[in-house]
């Protein structure tokens, strides 16, 4: 036992352990609602108990055991519940309280994320459920991060949990043959959580950096659980390499600093080293996919000592590969930035003009920058204004307004 504790320490443990505990309880009781409520109650007990007796050696195991007992109590109280709960009661009433072995517990979390990201649930619901059940975020925090009233978010979560129960969305890791269709939504959810934190269109600062950290943690978990799925490794590498630049991406007063102008000494070198190693690992295994290629592009950026020494030819080659795999207008837009560096802004502008991305602020910002570099200031001004009209992020707006001012 460690000495006395405070509620902050318990909250930290909640963040780290609640997803694991909810996942395990869901396996034991076959019901997400029961699992979630029992884990919440166990932490309420922990807050008062640990204040007196200190934090136990294995707080996760303590939480699972306590939550198990809470759930059994509840089922005994509500004896009218369906057969499977009675069965669960009979099955687990006499089990010893030894902590679950690590392997099956980790599988529990993988099962739960595949349930949360089931294609029968809407994407915004998948994100909310993942943050609630696996990352242990409170409903009010998720609501704030996605700028919806708390009651709306609470209702969305309740509906989703009922759909999982009523429609029989399974709690299991999909078979190998199903993985190609089931992994992409899981990766998309983790990437969206990261992006919401990184380039949030809204929300307050604190919650946003937290979303980045949750996404990285989920990506680490997925990569550890599915080491042979290279796109999972690719996503983790991508997030690490983007996250490594976060300290240099804003000035002290919160305004945006573009990649070329960043103080590279502020990049997180250990995250970069980790990300580069994962990218090399992917390259060696040679089964490229969109996340791996995006990670490789970011690896080239992170590898350059200065903006001027960036290997744009290699970046353009990677974008060519990415565009072949994922021929979307957004990829084409990002590729045009590399084209501008290799073949000049005129060639890039020609490509960009063929895209249909009106109203997407990076499209207008890219056009504005290319026009500015070509000395076409009047047209650039129109595009900067269009970009401004399409973003509500304060640091983005500050950056665009500054560009407009010096035009």
């Amino acid at each position, binding site marked *: 036992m460690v000495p006395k504790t405070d509620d902050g320490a318990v909250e930290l443990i909640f963040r780290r352990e609640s997803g694991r505990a909810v996942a395990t309880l869901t396996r034991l009781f076959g019901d997400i609602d029961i699992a979630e409520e029992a884990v919440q109650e166990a932490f309420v007990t922990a807050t008062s108990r640990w204040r007196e007796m200190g934090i136990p050696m294995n707080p996760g195991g303590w939480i699972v055991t306590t939550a198990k007992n809470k759930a059994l109590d509840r089922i005994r109280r509500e004896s009218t519940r369906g057969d499977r709960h009675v069965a669960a009661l009979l099955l687990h009433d006499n089990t010893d309280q030894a902590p679950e072995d690590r392997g099956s517990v980790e599988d529990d979390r993988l099962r739960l994320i595949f349930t949360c990201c089931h294609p*029968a649930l809407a994407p915004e619901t998948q994100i909310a459920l993942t943050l609630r059940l696996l990352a242990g975020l409170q409903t009010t925090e998720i609501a704030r991060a996605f700028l919806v009233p708390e009651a709306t978010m609470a209702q969305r979560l309740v509906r989703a949990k009922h759909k999982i129960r009523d429609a029989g969305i*399974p709690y299991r890791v999909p078979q190998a043959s199903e993985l190609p269709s089931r992994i992409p939504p899981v990766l998309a959810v983790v990437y969206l959580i990261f992006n919401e934190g990184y380039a949030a269109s809204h929300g307050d600062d604190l919650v946003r950096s937290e979303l980045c950290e949750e996404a990285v943690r989920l990506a680490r978990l997925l990569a550890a659980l599915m080491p042979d799925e290279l796109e999972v490794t690719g996503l983790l590498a991508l997030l690490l390499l983007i996250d490594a630049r976060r300290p240099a991406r804003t000035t002290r007063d919160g305004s945006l600093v573009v990649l070329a102008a960043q103080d590279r000494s502020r990049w997180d070198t250990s995250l970069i080293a980790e990300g580069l190693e994962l990218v090399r690992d992917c390259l060696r295994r040679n089964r490229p996919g969109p996340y791996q290629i995006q990670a490789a592009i970011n690896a080239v950026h992170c590898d350059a000592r200065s903006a001027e020494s960036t290997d744009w030819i290699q970046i353009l080659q990677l974008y060519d590969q990415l565009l072949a795999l994922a021929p979307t207008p957004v990829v084409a837009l990002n590729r045009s930035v590399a084209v501008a560096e290799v073949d000049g802004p005129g060639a890039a502008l020609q490509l960009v003009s063929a895209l249909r991305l009106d109203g997407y602020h990076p499209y207008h910002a890219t056009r504005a920058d290319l026009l500015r570099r070509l000395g076409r200031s009047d047209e650039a001004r129109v595009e900067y204004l269009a970009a401004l009209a399409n973003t509500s992020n304060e640091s983005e707006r500050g950056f665009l307004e500054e560009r407009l001012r010096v035009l």
Partner: protein
Amino acid sequence: MKQYLLSVHTPADAPMPSEEELGAMYASVDAFNAELQAAGGWVFAGGLYPPSSATVVHARDGEVVTTDGPFAETKEQLGGVWIIEASDLDAALTWAGKASASCGAPVEVRPFQELPA
């Protein structure tokens, strides 16, 4: 085992398919039904006459009112149903995918409520 309703939704104003197209559709639906029966997932299935053949009956305050249907004039109308048994939603969705391919229309999957124990 759970039971699911697989309902086929077709545009209400879709042109009548040709004899040939109908024949091909019936053949592929028959093949799907045979597969479903062989796997033990079949409970019931049937195609419906067009919505213009429907009648709505509503009993209210001891009086039964009968009107020319369908109940709701929507752009898509129910064309037919399957009732299947499946272990979970994934299994039901796999059957629904095959059902949709066989009839050439979108298929909605809805779980039946369990009978009270």
